[in-house]
């Protein structure tokens, strides 16, 4: 009898927690983890901020499945380019899409298309050395920057812009990125938050971290409403955030080179500029019913030369799969992909593509377990036909995937690059060099 073959598309936390849960089921399975890059770990490598090195230690756990003989890493293979959904359906008994939500949501305001405006995804990929952003030469020559959003990504962007070069030196950012950040002209980072202090989605520890920047003061602009009494907040996260914001507000500015402004009740109305960003029109908002804030008509201009929008992500439609344009996700029930009321057989989703772009790394563990349980339940007692090996199929198309051993070679090379520069690890960020490192053992 054949063991069922399962494809997991995407090797970020959601894909790899799904794999771990599939393995924990104890069923005999063969699992291929397919990624468009030759590197595993998705947003752990390319999303988690470089100064959150400890969080990246989650890779210790995520890597575990690849020590098993029945799990392969099939890297440098893009579904939609190198393989179709039909190819996957032919090669596997179940296909789990865990490829995330890579597109930035838009603001839908005038001026959004001006050079100097970018989505947080784009900016984060740049500072994290994602090969998609490798060609990008970003010079941070604006003295003032607006960051729009009230979540952890907005904080990441503001923090990276607020860090000194010394603080970032001991991270894995590529040399070119480090040089650009060291030359940065940025003095003021304005985080524009539509609602009030009690409404933000920041993880308390990450908000607190703003106070640990060596070269930046943190200023709170509460919009005249006050910050609110932490002891009256029912939710612990709100309580902790209000407490931290009060501390920020009570700490006098220390005349540091940079300032991070948390501007509450502030909505971007229009981005100004002739051929690139020269300012942003901000409108004060007022609290209405709970969770609502409406424009007040009072406006002011911040003379920013760069705008980063961090208002969420959405998935891109995948050929051959249903898609909810409104949610930016694939419709599903507990991970089973749904076309209207009908289950699409043998196709599953996990992670952000399944539930939308929210939550933190840990959220993916129970999420992946749920999807894995659906896969295992659906496979139970079903005879599976013999199926072609996807690596052979790719070979017949002259496409050579990279493997786990290749990633380990690249990882070793990045470690050596870091050691040569007195840093822990330095990322290789153009795809050609990455693939070369994957296939070339290092000289001893």
């Amino acid at each position, binding site marked *: 009898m054949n063991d069922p073959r399962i494809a997991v598309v995407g090797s970020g*936390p959601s894909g790899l*927690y799904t794999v771990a849960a599939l393995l*924990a089921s104890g069923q005999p399975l063969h699992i291929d983890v397919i990624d468009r890059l030759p590197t595993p770990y998705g947003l752990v490598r390319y999303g988690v901020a470089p100064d*959150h090195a*400890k*969080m*990246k*230690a*989650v890779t*210790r*756990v995520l890597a575990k499945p690849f020590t098993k003989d029945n799990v392969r890493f099939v890297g440098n293979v893009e579904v939609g380019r190198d393989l179709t959904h039909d190819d996957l359906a032919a090669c596997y008994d179940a296909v789990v899409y865990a490829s995330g939500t890579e597109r930035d949501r838009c603001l839908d305001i005038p001026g959004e298309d001006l050079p100097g405006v970018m989505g947080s995804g784009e900016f984060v990929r740049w500072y994290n050395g994602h090969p998609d952003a490798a060609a990008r030469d970003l010079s941070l020559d604006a003295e003032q920057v607006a960051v729009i959003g009230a979540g952890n990504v907005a904080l990441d962007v503001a923090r990276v812009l607020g860090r000194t070069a010394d603080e970032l030196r001991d991270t894995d950012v590529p040399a070119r990125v480090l040089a650009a950040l060291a030359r940065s002209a940025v003095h003021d980072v304005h985080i524009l938050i539509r609602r009030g202090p009690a409404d933000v989605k920041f*993880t*308390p*520890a*990450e908000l*607190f971290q703003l106070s640990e920047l060596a070269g930046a003061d943190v200023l709170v602009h509460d919009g005249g409403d006050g910050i609110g009494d932490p002891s009256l907040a029912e939710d*612990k*996260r709100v309580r*902790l955030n209000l407490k931290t914001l009060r501390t920020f507000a009570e700490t006098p500015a220390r005349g540091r080179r940079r300032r991070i402004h948390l501007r509450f009740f502030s909505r971007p109305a229009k981005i100004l500029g002739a051929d690139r960003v020269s300012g942003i029109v901000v409108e004060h908002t007022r609290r209405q019913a709970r969770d609502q804030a409406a424009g007040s008509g009072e406006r002011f201009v911040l003379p920013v030369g760069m705008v980063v929008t961090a208002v969420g992500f959405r998935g891109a439609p995948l050929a051959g799969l249903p898609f909810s344009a409104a949610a930016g996700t694939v419709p599903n029930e507990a991970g089973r992909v749904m076309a209207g009321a009908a289950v699409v057989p043998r196709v599953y989703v996990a992670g952000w593509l399944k539930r939308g772009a929210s939550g*933190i*790394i*840990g*959220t*993916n*563990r*129970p999420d992946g377990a749920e999807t894995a349980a659906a896969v295992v339940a659906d496979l139970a007692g079903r005879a599976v036909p013999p199926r072609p090996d996807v690596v052979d199929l790719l070979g017949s198309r002259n496409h050579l995937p990279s493997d786990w051993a290749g990633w380990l070679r690249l990882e070793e090379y990045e470690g050596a690059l870091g050691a040569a520069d007195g840093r822990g690890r330095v990322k290789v960020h153009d795809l050609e060099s990455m693939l070369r490192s994957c296939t070339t053992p290092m000289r001893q």
Partner: protein
Amino acid sequence: MPYVIAESCIDVMDRSCMEECPVDCIYEGSRKLYINPYECIDCGACEPACPVEAISQDRAVPNGQEEFVSDNLRFFADPLPGRAEPLGQPGGAAVLGPVGIDTDLIASYQRDG
């Protein structure tokens, strides 16, 4: 700065946090759960998962409960009562299973009220 579990977990042990922890570093004693500071990656997933708000960053434990910070460490760094070796870094609570022993502090702890 790892996260720690303080007083309100004692005799509750809801375990929701164990499911959320991405590195499976929350271990089960007899009366209380403990976060392994060697294995914790500071992600904060456990904090909102706890229904009795027992979890916080070590710098932010409730006033008067500072002893739980060192006690969480002691659970892993020192041999538990009746054991010869410390737990150290077992590499995951699911692999290890419930430990079933508490530190001296917790074993003899009297909750107020």
